[in-house]
Each structure stands twice: as C-alpha cells, then as structure tokens.
C-alpha cells in the first residue's frame, strides 16, 4: 500500500525563505523543486549533448572489451616502523593533548591540540581558560590545514635565490652590528598584532639598545582607531571590557560583537546564557548596514548605513538626554555633525526608553571601524545610562603606542629607512591604496618578509623567509582579558619555518634555545618563575592571575566633547562602500585555506567568492540581478565586482568582504572573488562614502552558493516565536505540527536494544550561525573540499549544512529576521534511506545510529534521493586524491594526495573514495572510543555498571554558544535528555514519522511592544500557519 503523505501546502509567498527565488516563487525555483536534486547532483551536466550516463554506458562496454587485467597480483609489502628510541608520553595510536593558543589580532584563542603520533590533527578549545568554554571558532578549527598546506613557503630566498639559514643569520648579525653603530637609525620593523608579551619584551629590549628603531604595528582590519579613541577617553592603554552577560538591554550600532574574529573570544557564550526564555532574557537591538551574525540574533533590527551610525547614535543620545535631563549627553548629541539624516522617531524613542528602563544593566556597542566622534558619543550614552562600572569596565593593558604604516611610508619617502623587516601581515596587498606601499618598498635598500606563503609582499622584498606556523613554534599570546596563554610547538617546523620571536631575539642579541625567549618573558610577569610554575603554565595553557585587572572607568566629558566636535559633517544620499571582514578568509590571511574557502559566508552562503552586496531596492534601481557586474568608483580608483542581492541590507550602501581577488600566490586563490583593497584609503579603512556605482553590461558572474541546494518547500522547518507566546504556550513549536498521523511508519523499525542511545539537540535560540561546527566537522571527519565548480553543481560535501532562513511576516525589508539552523543527518529511527539501499550499506545500530558502511556502498544514491533532509553527500570524484582542477581527468591521470595533507587526516576516520555516499555519523569514532574506553576500564567486570568516559561530538565541542548538545538519551540525567525535555523542542518534518534523533529547540525572540513593527517580530511561522 502506498502511503500518501499529507504534505503541508506551500505558500505562494512564504514568510520563511532561504533564497530570493523561493520568496518570489520564480520559475527556476519551481523547476528546482520538481527535481530531487540540482542538475549535476543527479548526474546530469547542464547543457551537454551526450549525457553523462550514455557516456558511462559506452565506456563501460569499452572497458569490458579491452579486458580487465589482473594487475598487482603480488601482495604489496608493508612495513611497520617502530621508534628507535621511545618518545616521551607516546603510545602509538593514542592521541596526546597539549594546551596551546592561537594568536589572533583580537586576542589569543586558548586551545587544546590533539596530536596523533606526533602530528597535530585536531584543535579544540581549552575549557580551563576563564574566557573559553572549551569552544573554538572556524578559523582556529581550520588553522591545522594551514600548517600542512603544501603551498607554504619552504625556503629562505634572497633575490629569488635559495640561501641557507646561515646566510639569514649573517644578515641578522649584520643588521644588529649596523644598528649598534648608529642606534638603529634606518631600521624599521613591521609586526602584526599578536598580543605576545615576548614580542613586547623584545621590542622594549630593541628600543633600549637601538633608540632610533621604527617599530610599526599593522593589521589590515585594525581596531587602531578605536584604541586611539580609548586612549583619549579612558586614559592611555585603558581598554573597555564589556560584559554582555550582565546586560538586560543591548543596542549594537554596527557592532558584530558575537563574531569572535571581530571582537575576540567569549561574547557568544555570555550572550547565549541570557537567551533562555525561562530565565531573565535579554533584548537586543541592532542597527547595521548589512546582516551580520549579531543582526541575525536581534529582536529589533534597523537598516542604517554605516556612514549614518553617528547620526543614529546622536538621535539615541538626544532621546536619552531628553528623558534624563543629562546636560552633558545633550551637549554631546548636539555637538555631533553627521549627515543630518533622520530616523523613525518611534524606533529611537522605543530603544531609548528601553535602555533607560534598564539603567546600569544596559549596553550600547558600536563597530570597531567607526570614528572617534561616534565612539565618544557611545561612551557618553553608556555613561548617562550608568553602564560604566557595571556592564562596561576598563582594563589597563599598558599597551604602548606603535608607529602606523602611514608613518613608515612617510619615513621611506624621506629616505630614512635603510632596512625593513616585515614580520607580520601582507602590507603590499592590504595597505590602504593611497599609500602606494608596494612601490615604496622598492625604495628601501634591504627588505625582508617573514610569511607562511610567498605572497604579494614576499614578491617585492629582497629576502623571503618562511614563517613557522603557531603549531610549530614557541610563543605566547594574551587573550582578550589579558591572560597570558602559552603557544607550544606540536611538531618541528615542517619546512624550516622561523618565528618572528626568533628573528627579534637574534636582533636583540638573545641566544635562542627552544622556549628560552618565552621562558625569559614568563619570569617577568609570573610571581613564581620556577620550573614547576613553568610546567604548570605549559600544562594549563595559560598563566593564572595574569588577566589585566578590571576597574570602573571614569568618564571624561571634556575629552568626549572634543572628540565629538572633531566630526566633520558629510553629505547624505551618495553611495557608500563598507569593507567587511570575510567570514571565510578574514582579511585575506586564510585565503589559501581551502576548508575556509569552502565554508559558506554567514549570511549570503557564498563559497569561494566574495561579492558586492546590494539591497534589493538598490538592485532594482541599478537594474541588476545576482551576478551582474558593478563598477565601484571611489576617488580616482575603481574596482569591478559582481553584485549579490542581500536582503536586509541598507539602501544606498554596498558591502564587500576584503581578502579576495588575489592572483599569483597559489592555485587555491586563483579566480576567487574581487579585491576591494584598492578602494580603501588611510582615512577610510572601515567604510567610504561618496562612491559612484554603475552597472556594467557584462555577462553575469557565476556564484556558488550552498543555500541554493536542496529546498524544503517551506514546511516550517525553522521555528520561532516570541517570549509572550512562549510564556502562554511553552510548547508552541511542537504545537505547530498540529494533528500528526498515527505513529506508523512505512520504514523499518530496527530494535533499539543498546543501553546507550544517542541523540542530539540544537538550540536555535542560542545558535548564532558562526560556522565553527561546520569546520570542526570537516576537520574531525576528513570531509573533502570540492571546489567552486562542484559546489555550484550542488556537490558540496560538508556534513553539517547551516541553513540561513530569512523570515518576515509581511515581506517587508523592515521586518526581516534571520534564523540560522544547523542541519546534519537526523539519524532517524525509521530511516527512509535504509529502506532503499540495495547493498545494505546503510543500516541501523541497536544504539540508534544510522550507520554508513563505506566499503559496502556501491553508489546508487537511492539513499540521498529518499532523504527528506537532503543531508547525504556523494563522492562524485576522488576529491581526496585529485587536485580540484583535475577532477575530470581520466583514470590514468596521476593521483595522490600531498604527503603533508595526509598528515592532517584524522587516523580514526576512513578517507572516502569516489563513488561512495557519506554523511554525519554522530562522530562514531568518538562514540566507539568511549565505548571501548568503558569496556577496557570494566575489564573482567560488568561493563554496563561502568561509567562511560565523557566525550563530545566535534560540532558540540566547537560550539561557542553551547547550542549543540549530544549524548545518551537513555540517561535522564544527561544534558541531551534535559535539552530534549525542554518545551521548545520539536522535530523537523515530524509528520513524516521518521522519528529523528536530532531535535531542535525553537527560537524565541523578545520584542519590545512599544517598538514599531513589534507584532511582526517572531511571527513568520504564525503567519505561515494561518495562510
């Protein structure tokens, strides 16, 4: 008997959608629904004459006729090579864990690095560290691939000739000798911002020895402007520390504070703790020009152009001042000269009133790229709200100012720089275009670039020195709160890499021996410098009580007023271009990392590209569609970039991510995106007004977006409601299923007899959509990268797909919301995929796992066809064995993986070959390790009475907001059982009765009834129900 499913009808105009086509109900979208897969994912190449199947049929016959030779009849001889001398702690096949940290400009990410047989293979957060809850971000997860990248710079070169380490040492000795004779005159050093106490100590030593040295600190996307403002407002070296967990009401004006790359580690967790609707839930207002992670979490969101953030802040300041009668704030607000634009008074009043109702427990934040005037206004508002000392404290970092890149350029022009050592960054590519840095470099008689890759800067310096990755060098770095974290080498430098600390130490005349430089610094900040204290530092990964002490900030009204008065008004109405930090390649530093290139953008879901984001209204005005070319002209420079329509984007505003469009560095970066750096100017690093935009009559550019795949026909998969709704009816989400059919299933019901039963819960209320789980899964499970062309054909392999739903109950841009939703294999108890597998390659375990036996799979793809969630991934090619540009080569073409990439693989997970289906396994290798660990511990006793060793799935471990919970649902005390018992829990596609082991907790928004459009917040599902 054929079961007929009563699928919910699809709205002609849905209130929740993922793609523009879905919203508009376009012909292409409807055609894509009618098919199970996109063209290529069903094996049909677009627009080919002889179909692929026909070709395979012919080739099959030909192969059969030419005979299948019995090749390789001899047994291949394999060798087992034990150590000659046993290595300390090493047990072959067992993981070893070391504490370390990844230095980033925003502060160190504290880590626990997993090494297997001496190779670092996986990275997790360090749960001991006060700021970390054991989580990481996507960049830290992917950094292990950078270590093994075969494109890394490998040799020391001088004027393109390979030289030895001795030559480099001679050079450094010569520089030191010269500097000693002329007090460092003509010596300049550029460092990145790595927050390393050792680099700071060596800097002090160098400045002491060579007082005339020019010490430059440069980051492409820098918070320098903000820091200079803080120096003025709070005193030199004082930096604000915001505690989002303490704030009841948060207003973010263009601040993507939930994104760890932007604002440092530790915000997402504090924020998520306040999103539980059963506790005291906070409220988030966001005013921003493009949808950011933070904007997606907003309860109320307003589209504001980046150049008008100041006006918005002034409007809020006036409204607050009017209510409180704070003359100081009033003076600040009226002194501000912006574009003169006005905002919806009801919005401003609603925000101001709400902030005032939470005096001392509110928080107003602004993006790091805003000018000092706007920052001073924001501090003024916070001061007036009584937030200074409660939600905002300051930390005295003791940071000493360094010269800027523009100072260096002036010195080079004056001819006073004779030797330039670039020990961080890629300034020839990232420097503001007005500086003409690449050409200025040629004027310096001796230049040296230390870098992981032979990049744009290395090509124009005399010396190129391969840098050591942070996983292969000694170092230290302060995390956001100032706690000093240790950076330990996990492996000897693979390609003779040298760390910046080694170079600086030899310049300062220090003998380097392993950790000696770091150890010497340790003695300066640690009360106890003994061997035992040092060992504890390395073991824990950080030195306790080294955080900068918190103190209540004093508000300097005079300085703030002076800063606000510095603002120059600008004209409103012209286009602006906003430079974004890419969620995939940061400022371009990860452009060579294919895991990250294939990680979709948070919002646009674009891979292997960036795009000029335009609002739907602007797109209409310009007459463009997705992929059409724009010429963006700022001053005397222009770039051509393809446009992408971004719902929720501010009008008369463009956003473009930096770090793309690089050529001639490595094949990974070729033909990837558009370089936006030429549009930047020293005075406009974050955004630039007065931009001219015109559409170019060129063929549309083809983007690859993961969100276009596998549509779900608007079946209330992502669910949200409001706090009021939750309090009335806590289980509103599962109620949306209405009357479910009787729990019968056409699919098999395997016996679930195991004492352990695995399940997973995703809390949509705390999930910010940061991609950490996705990259963690890729690293843990050896998931291959397929390249832009294959993604475009719908063949991406990521086991976790983060759906980004747009929701709007009335289809207006003003009420647009975003819901990220991680979708992995749902591990259905009655799995549709298992019933259709002809080879029994996907079967059920008694512990409720939907297993995938790769070696049995014959690649019919029936299972993927029958999966309602479309989470099964098929290996169309030998993605592991072939370079991405040679996938279509014949069977005799060379195959093989770079040796260094083999080292990055998790030895406990099979590397899949061509023709095999794969999908999320709930990290079965970790489950099995835990089960084995329990059995080993039990030994000759009852195993069921032995506790299971604690473990997490890779996605759960990486999640910064703890929204993914995995575990044994048979144990009522487990975290996952408790999560599943939550009233907000629902199953997606529950009416299919497949009983997924993955459940979701609905998102709850906390709208302010006094705000305009409050009735539309969190209402998309309700509208959907009634339609």
């Amino acid at each position, binding site marked *: 008997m054929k079961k007929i499913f009563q699928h919910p009808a699809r709205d002609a105009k849905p209130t929740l959608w993922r793609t523009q086509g879905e919203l508009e109900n376009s012909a292409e979208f409807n055609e894509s629904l009618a098919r199970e897969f996109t063209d290529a994912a069903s094996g049909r190449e677009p627009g080919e004459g002889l179909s692929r199947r026909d070709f395979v049929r012919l080739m099959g016959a030909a192969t059969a006729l030419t005979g299948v030779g019995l090749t390789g009849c001899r047994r291949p001889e394999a060798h087992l*090579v034990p150590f000659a001398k046993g290595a300390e702690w090493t047990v072959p096949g067992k993981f070893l864990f070391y504490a370390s940290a990844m230095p980033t400009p925003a502060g160190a990410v504290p880590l626990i690095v997993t090494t297997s047989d001496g190779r670092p293979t996986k990275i997790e957060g360090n749960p001991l560290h006060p700021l970390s809850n054991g989580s990481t971000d996507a960049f830290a997860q992917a950094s292990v691939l950078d270590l093994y990248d075969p494109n890394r710079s490998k040799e020391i070169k001088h004027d393109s000739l390979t030289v030895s380490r001795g030559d480099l040492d001679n050079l450094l000795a010569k520089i030191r000798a010269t500097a000693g004779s002329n007090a460092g005159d003509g010596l300049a050093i550029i460092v990145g911002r790595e927050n390393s106490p050792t680099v700071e100590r060596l800097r002090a030593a160098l400045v002491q020895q060579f007082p005339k040295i020019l010490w430059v600190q440069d980051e492409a996307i820098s918070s320098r402007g903000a820091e200079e403002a803080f120096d003025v407002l709070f005193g030199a070296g004082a930096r604000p520390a915001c505690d989002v967990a303490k704030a009841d009401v948060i207003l973010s004006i263009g601040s993507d504070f939930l994104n760890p790359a932007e604002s440092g580690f530790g915000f997402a967790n504090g924020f998520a703790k306040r999103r539980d609707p059963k506790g005291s839930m906070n409220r988030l207002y966001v005013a921003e020009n493009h949808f950011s992670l933070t904007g997606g979490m907003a309860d109320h969101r307003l589209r504001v152009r980046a150049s008008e953030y100041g006006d918005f802040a002034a409007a809020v300041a006036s409204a607050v001042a009017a209510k409180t009668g704070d003359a100081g704030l009033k003076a600040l607000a009226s002194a501000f000269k912006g574009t003169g634009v006005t905002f919806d008074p009801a919005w401003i009043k609603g925000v101001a009133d709400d902030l005032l109702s939470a005096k001392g427990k509110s928080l107003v934040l602004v993006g790091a790229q805003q000018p000092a005037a706007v920052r001073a206004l924001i501090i003024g508002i916070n001061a007036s709200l009584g937030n200074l000392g409660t939600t905002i404290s300051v930390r005295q970092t003791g940071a000493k100012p360094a010269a800027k890149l523009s100072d260096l350029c002036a010195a080079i022009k004056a001819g006073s720089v004779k030797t330039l050592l670039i020990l961080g960054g890629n300034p020839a590519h990232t420097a503001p275009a007005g500086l003409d840095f690449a050409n200025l470099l040629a004027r310096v008689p001796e230049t040296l670039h230390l870098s992981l890759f032979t990049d744009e800067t290395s090509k124009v310096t005399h010396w190129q020195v391969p840098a050591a990755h942070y996983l292969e060098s000694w170092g230290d770095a302060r995390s956001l709160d100032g706690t000093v974290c240790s950076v330990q080498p996990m492996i000897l430098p693979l390609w003779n890499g040298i760390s910046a600390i080694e170079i600086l130490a030899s310049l300062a005349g220090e003998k380097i021996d392993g950790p000696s430089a770091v150890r010497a610094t340790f003695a300066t900040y640690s009360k106890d410098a003994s061997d035992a204290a040092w060992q504890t530092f390395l073991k824990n990964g950080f030195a306790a009580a080294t955080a900068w002490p918190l103190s209540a900030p004093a508000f300097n009204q005079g300085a703030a007023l002076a800063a606000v008065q510095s603002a120059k008004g600008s004209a409103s109405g012209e286009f602006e271009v906003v430079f974004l930090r890419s969620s995939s390649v940061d400022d371009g530093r990860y452009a060579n990392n294919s895991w990250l290139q294939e990680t979709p953008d948070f919002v646009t879901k674009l891979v292997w590209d960036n795009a000029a984001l335009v609002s739907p209204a602007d797109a209409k005005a310009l007459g463009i569609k997705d992929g059409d070319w724009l010429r963006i002209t700022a001053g005397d420079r222009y770039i051509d970039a393809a446009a992408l329509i971004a719902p929720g984007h501010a009008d008369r505003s463009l956003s473009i991510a930096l770090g793309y469009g690089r050529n001639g560095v490595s094949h990974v970066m070729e033909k990837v995106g558009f370089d936006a750096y030429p549009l930047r100017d020293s005075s406009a690093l974050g955004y630039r007004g007065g931009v001219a935009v015109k559409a170019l009559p060129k063929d549309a550019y083809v983007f690859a977006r993961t969100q276009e795949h596998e549509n779900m026909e608007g079946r209330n998969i992502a669910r949200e409601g409001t706090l009021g709704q939750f309090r009335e009816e806590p289980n509103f989400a599962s109620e949306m299923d209405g009357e479910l059919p009787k729990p019968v299933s056409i699919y098999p019901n395997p016996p679930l007899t195991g004492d352990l039963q695995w399940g997973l819960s995703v809390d949509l209320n705390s999930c910010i959509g940061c991609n950490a789980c996705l990259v963690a899964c890729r690293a843990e499970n050896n998931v291959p990268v397929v390249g832009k062309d294959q993604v475009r054909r719908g063949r991406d392999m990521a086991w976790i797909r983060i759906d980004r739903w747009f929701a709007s109950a009335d289809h207006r841009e003003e009420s647009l919301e975003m819901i990220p939703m991680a979708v992995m294999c749902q591990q259905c108890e009655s799995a549709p995929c298992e019933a259709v597998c002809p080879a029994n390659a996907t079967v059920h375990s008694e512990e409720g796992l939907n297993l995938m036996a790769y070696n049995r799979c014959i690649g019919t793809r029936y299972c993927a066809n029958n999966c309602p969630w479309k989470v099964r991934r098929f290996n169309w090619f030998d993605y592991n064995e072939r370079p991405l540009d040679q996938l279509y080569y014949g069977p005799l073409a060379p195959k093989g993986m770079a040796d260094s990439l083999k080292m990055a693989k998790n030895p406990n997970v099979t590397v899949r070959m061509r023709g095999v289906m794969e999908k999320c396994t709930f990290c079965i290798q970790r489950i*099995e390790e835990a089960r084995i660990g329990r059995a080993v511990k039990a*030994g000759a006793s009852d195993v069921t009475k032995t506790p299971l060793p604690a473990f997490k799935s890779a996605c759960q471990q990486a999640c910064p907001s703890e929204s993914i919970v995995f575990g044994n649902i048979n144990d009522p005390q487990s975290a996952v059982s408790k999560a599943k018992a939550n009233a907000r829990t629902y199953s997606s596609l529950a009416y299919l009765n497949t009983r997924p082991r993955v459940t979701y907790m609905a998102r709850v928004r906390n709208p302010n009834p006094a705000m305009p459009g409050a009735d539309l917040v969190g209402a998309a599902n309700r509208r959907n129900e009634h339609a």
Partner: protein
Amino acid sequence: MSNFFPRWANWLPLQLLVCVLVVGAPITLGVWYYFTPKYTRVGYQPDQPVPFSHALHVKQLGMDCRYCHSFVEVAGHSNLPATQTCINCHGEGKILSNSPRLAPVRESWKTGQPIPWVQIHRLPDYAYFNHAVHVNRGVSCYSCHGAVNEMSVVYEAESLSMKWCLDCHRSPENFLRPPSEIFNMDWHPSSATEQRELGTKFKEEWKVNPPVNCGGCHR
C-alpha cells in the same frame, strides 16, 4: 529447403552444458577457495630484517608478550618494540652483542633509523580493530595470532576475514578466557564443552556484548 541447422547441432546444448560444467565449475570453485583470505592470507610468512624468534624468546626464555608489545592493554595498536627494547638485553657487552644477525638492531640504535619490520597481520584501512578492548575482555593473543610462542618465524595463523571476526563477535563464549590466561599461550581448555561453559559464564558476568553492526569496526 534443407535444414537450417546441420545435424550435429542437436548436440550443441549438451556440449555447451558439459563445457560450462567442466570449465565453469572449476573456475567458480577455484575463486571460491583461492580468492579468500583463508587461502591468500593464512600462512603468509615473510622474511624479517632481523630473524627474531618468538619460539626462543617466549617458549624457551619465558618472556611475557607485554615486555615488547607494551601498550597492548591500553592502546588500539599493539606496538612493535622500539629498538631500545632490544638493546635492553642485546646492548653492548650484553647478550649476543656481536652477533651478525643482530647487526640491523645495532645499526638502528646507532643511527636512530627504525627497523623496517614487515607487516604480517594487515586489516583494510576501513576496519578499525582495537587490541586493548579484546585483551582486557578475555580474548587471548592466541585466538587471533595462533601459537606465536612456537613460531620461530611469525606467520599469519588466521584469515582475519570479516566472517572470521563475526564468528567470534556472534558467539564470544567460544573464545573467552580467564583474565589470568590472556597472555598465556599454552593455556587451552580441556574440551570444547569446558570452553563453552567458561565462556558463557564470563559473557554473562562481564556483560560481553561485542558489536555485530557495521559501526563497531567501520567508521
């Protein structure tokens, strides 16, 4: 019209049948037998770089397996000993310190280069076997590796095929031993009945429930 088929064609079906039986059957049976690990794997006895004799070290000298394979109880892999382990007894001025047969060991110790032992027991890459869980839960080395204590040159004693694994995973009572006899290669139950009784007792007491689903070994 003459007959289309000549007369001899009447015998063609029978001839074909005989042909299939005579040629086809041996091929089928041949593949059945010769292409299985039982034939291709069992008895594999490659030359090793050092003629190490288990018979001498274990049987005659009474060394425990774990002196060399020291991590077998804690790790998935049962490690081969580092050269250092050999040198403990065969180092300078010790046993046979000048024997030419031990030259590769001394060479390895001097240069730090490992000894390239030839692998005998080899599972496919997609099968994950864990030694620790087996030896801790009553499975002896003997069950998979045979009487290594009597081999002067080690060979593969069992097929290590999936069916062979499952035979034990489905009925572990036929192989479980007292924990004290795991590494005793000379311990044998007096009869199959005794083994079954003992095994069943352990299986129930320890709740031995080896996985028989794919996920137990394939990840």
